[in-house]
């Protein structure tokens, strides 16, 4: 069936809710309203108010209740609305992440927190704060880049016995439709995907940037450069093997991120490559990401904020690649 990213998320939830009576959805306006940006469209109609629970505007309590219900054996899926609200629930994330370890292995907190982010048609609430969550022990962070992975990763997140932050790029949300397998399937958490194979450089990214990287990589053929695109899919814990294998092969890496540079998760990837692929590296690892300012409002500034093709191109040059642009006819 052809689905958008948002529809694929709903399909994953509907599937898990049908299979497992312990799965339920909670958040602000997830019921009759259909969820922010229609993120839960149709679930209320199918599962009713007992399993699709509208909550007061109290993010700490929403996630807090999910933690408690999860301890008690439920599998709550919270719609946090926006990743911009992550600061409001950091404490709950820290606690949930610690529970299994700190309880000596007795407690489990299998909840999922869905959170929308990213510059896109929905103007605002774009902050990409995911990096904080990668720094919380015991928490997994997942960022699908297409409808199929959205369904497979959300299914896996619901089934995972740990707290999972599931981030949804608003630029992908309703924009592309793709054939998505019927029925339940899992995309394993902790495994990256080679979105495009190549030999000369690895472009490493997640979410909406995967599409941009792929498009860019296509164009690079014209420069005589064969670029591999690595879709991280899981941002914590990282799929170290796939990253290392790819960069060991290509010898060059550019990491594309929508989070600001200092303290951002992309640095973890860069540091991993720097320490693990040292002898394979033919040039410096480059990070392409927004400048360290709050996400600006005007569309023209948003555009200047998110790395564009020009920034990727100069990062490629920064890795020491030479781009032999062919005549315009190409």
């Amino acid at each position, binding site marked *: 069936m052809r689905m958008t990213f948002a529809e694929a998320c709903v399909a994953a939830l509907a599937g898990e809710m049908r299979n497992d009576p312990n799965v339920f959805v909670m958040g*602000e*306006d997830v*019921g*009759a*309203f259909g969820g922010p940006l229609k993120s839960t469209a149709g679930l209320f109609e199918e599962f009713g108010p007992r399993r699709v629970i*509208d909550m*007061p*505007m*109290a*993010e*700490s*309590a929403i996630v807090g209740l999910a933690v408690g219900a999860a301890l008690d054996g439920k599998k709550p899926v919270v719609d946090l609305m*926006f990743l*911009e*609200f992550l*600061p*409001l629930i950091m404490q709950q994330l820290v606690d949930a992440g610690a529970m299994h370890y700190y309880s000596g292995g007795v407690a489990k907190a299998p909840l999922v927190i869905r959170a929308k982010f990213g510059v896109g048609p929905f*103007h*605002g*609430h774009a*902050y990409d704060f995911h990096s904080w969550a990668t720094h919380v022990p015991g928490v997994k962070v997942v960022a699908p880049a297409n409808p199929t992975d959205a369904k497979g990763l959300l299914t896996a997140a619901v089934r995972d016995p740990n707290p999972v932050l599931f981030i949804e790029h608003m630029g992908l949300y309703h924009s592309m439709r793709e054939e998505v397998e019927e029925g339940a399937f899992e995309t394993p958490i902790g495994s990256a995907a080679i979105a495009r194979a190549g030999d000369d450089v690895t472009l490493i990214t997640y979410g909406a940037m995967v599409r941009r990287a792929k498009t860019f990589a296509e164009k690079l053929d014209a420069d005589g450069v064969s670029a591999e695109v690595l879709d991280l899919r899981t941002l914590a814990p990282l799929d170290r093997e796939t990253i290392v294998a790819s960069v060991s092969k290509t010898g060059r890496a550019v990491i594309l991120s929508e989070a600001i540079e200092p303290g951002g998760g992309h640095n973890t990837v860069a540091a991993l490559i720097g320490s693990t692929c040292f002898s394979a590296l033919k040039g410096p690892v480059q990070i392409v990401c927004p*400048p*360290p*300012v*709050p996400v*600006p*409002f*005007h*569309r*023209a*500034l948003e*555009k*200047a*904020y998110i790395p564009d093709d020009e920034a990727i191109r100069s990062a490629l040059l920064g890795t020491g690649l030479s781009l032999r642009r062919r005549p315009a006819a190409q």
Partner: protein
Amino acid sequence: MTRANDEVLELYRLMSFSRIFDRVIGGHDGHWHGLEGEEAAAVGAYFGLRATDVLAPHYRGSPLASYIKGADLRRLIAGMMGKPTGYNKGKHRNDVCGPWDFRLIGLYSGSLGPPLSYAAGAALSMKLDGRDNVAVAVFGDGTSSRGDVHEAMNTSSVLKLPIVFVCQNNQIAISTPTQTGVGGEIYRRAEGFGMTGRAVDGNDVLAVRGAMDEAIAAARAGKGPSLIELRTFRVAGHFYSDTEDYRDRETVDAWRRKDPIAQFSRYLLENDICTSQELVEIDSRLEAEISEAFQAALADPPPDGRDIDVEAVYAK
């Protein structure tokens, strides 16, 4: 208490301003959070502060608050469009964040709630200096569920800060009615923090002003914080192009009949405070003022990429 006629007419003008402003901005931007039905509450809450007072308005109605506090309309609208001529230089949205130039505290991220404490902090500063200023902090019924409200109210109470908390209860938060979002009556929460709380008809601008005047006078006099709950109704959609299929029209229509502007116009005419001709003139001046400012802001140049101005992130 009787009020001077020019003050009463100014209240009318500001309510009418808001209604017209909604229409102009909403026609341009479907995301606009309109104030229809809540004008008496908002105008009543924001009117009459000193330039040196601090105001943290509710996000819905923030440009009205800025305008009342003295902001230039054209720059405000430019700021709502993200133009560099706006107060925020295109970097942020003046629709939810009024200019600090006029001592407004708005949203500096999408999260509702935290500005209540920022307002309390300004009140602490006033108190430390022994100034007789106040801070007014306004929040919605939805926002009332956030822990920020609790922390700001309790802290203001124990420190006896000159702050007035106002809940603009329009009985809904996006699609969530107060019945399922709010346990108990909001104004009664004040008692539990050791401050007075009262509920007021939020569609009666004079009642709102009366309650605000008392609370502000008490705060200025060093008597500490209080809470006023303004009971009104969101006749507007959550945003301008909201299809509102999550609620039934009857209730909305019933509240439309309690329209605060129509109600106040009747009061003005019945009490011979002005003629209907005068009201028409006020409205048409407003139409002209707003559309002129809007057109000017629209014509202002957009930023270019360099206006992102990375260095500006730190104050020097």
